[in-house]
């Protein structure tokens, strides 16, 4: 893990679930590592980097309409 770290508070029941998940599934050495992974995954999947601009999306839709797909 790299980068400066900060403290946050998380619901206790979620922490317990996460610890149980790590224990059962493996693949993570610590709760911190697991939380880093979850956050990175969500941010990568849902973040602005993977989104199109409205203009781009409209162009895609125009083409799909022109081709008869929509």
């Amino acid at each position, binding site marked *: 893990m790299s980068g400066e770290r900060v403290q946050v508070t998380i619901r206790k029941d979620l922490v317990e679930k996460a610890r149980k998940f790590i224990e059962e599934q493996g693949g993570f050495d610590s709760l911190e590592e697991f939380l880093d992974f979850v956050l990175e*995954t969500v941010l*990568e*999947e849902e973040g602005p*980097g*993977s989104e*199109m601009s409205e203009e781009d*999306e409209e162009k*895609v*839709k125009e*083409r*799909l309409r022109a*081709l008869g*797909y*929509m």
Partner: protein
Amino acid sequence: MVSQPHGGRLVRRVAHGRRRERLLEEAQGMPQLELDDTRAADVANIAHGAYSPLEGFLTEEDYESVLLHMRLSNDLPWPIPIVLDTPSEAARDWGVGDEIALTHRGRMLAVMSVEDIYAWDRAEYAERVYRTTDPGHPGVAKLGEMGGLLVGGRLELLEEPPEPFQALRLWPIETRVLFRERGWRTIVAFQTRNVPHLGHEYVQKAALTFTDGLLIHPLVGWKKPGDFRDEVIIRAYEELIRHYYPPNSVVLSVLRMQMRYAGPREAVFHAIVRKNYGATHFIVGRDHAGVGSYYGPYEAWDIFREFPDLGITPLFIRESFYCTKCGGMVNEKICPHGDEHRIRISGTKLRSLLANKQMPPETMMRREVAQVVMEFDNPFTE
């Protein structure tokens, strides 16, 4: 929700606007490498994210990792090397960090940053990927046409290569928007290089029964002699869909990509590419991407056990046949009747009938489909 792209991000390496103009100008002064149709298609597939997470052709580290472990060096499943070959003399003056221009049919196609230039071993490639060095294997034979060096590095597309089936060519970003607009959350993709017979229709509809939509995704591009021609496959599917599929449940689009006949490895690769198109499920044939007897029955299914982290669900649907007692297409799992009631579909027999302009029995192929195929003087590649 449709599948997340492989590696988490849909790659987009297409230059636009002023950047494209600048790169086009700069490319004039770069060393140039002319690509054939197959490699040009790879460039477009990389640039439009069909091969996400690849942003270019493989460097040696990834190449070795793919050959040995069927994974990229970052451990992501990736069973087929996507490489750019060049004759040794062409790359003599290139070095790491150089920019080269990739051309196709004399037109500027893309620019590429050279990150690696390395020698490769054809026999090792063949043995690992095709599990044979027999030059009778069509994929192995194609290796013999390749140059002695491989060049790895990121690329940026400047010009789309020509696409004869433009109206049916969709990129991953387009299918993803389309699926969302149709409200599909689960999409099953079907890879094909054949005209559809009743067995294909059966597995597609079986899968569609529990998914929201079906992506029929024929490969167009180089195939071995004797395979159906691209336009025949497309016309046959258009006819099948027109008569027998609910239009709002199916999307027909082409994928321009070389057929490698690499059996199990290629089955996984086909699934990964369809994941990038947004598919959540992928139908895997019993001898998927196989040829001759190079791969054993069900090997293309077994290999998926090695990839629990693939991110797309493979569907293994048993071989189907027509049962005269059941009165329809069924499979071993759902039909209790004996062989005397079962009419199995033979691809060889179908080919022979169609080549001789003889209508196949309706227990094998839809009449409308057969008619379309037989309208072509020669439906097969030469």
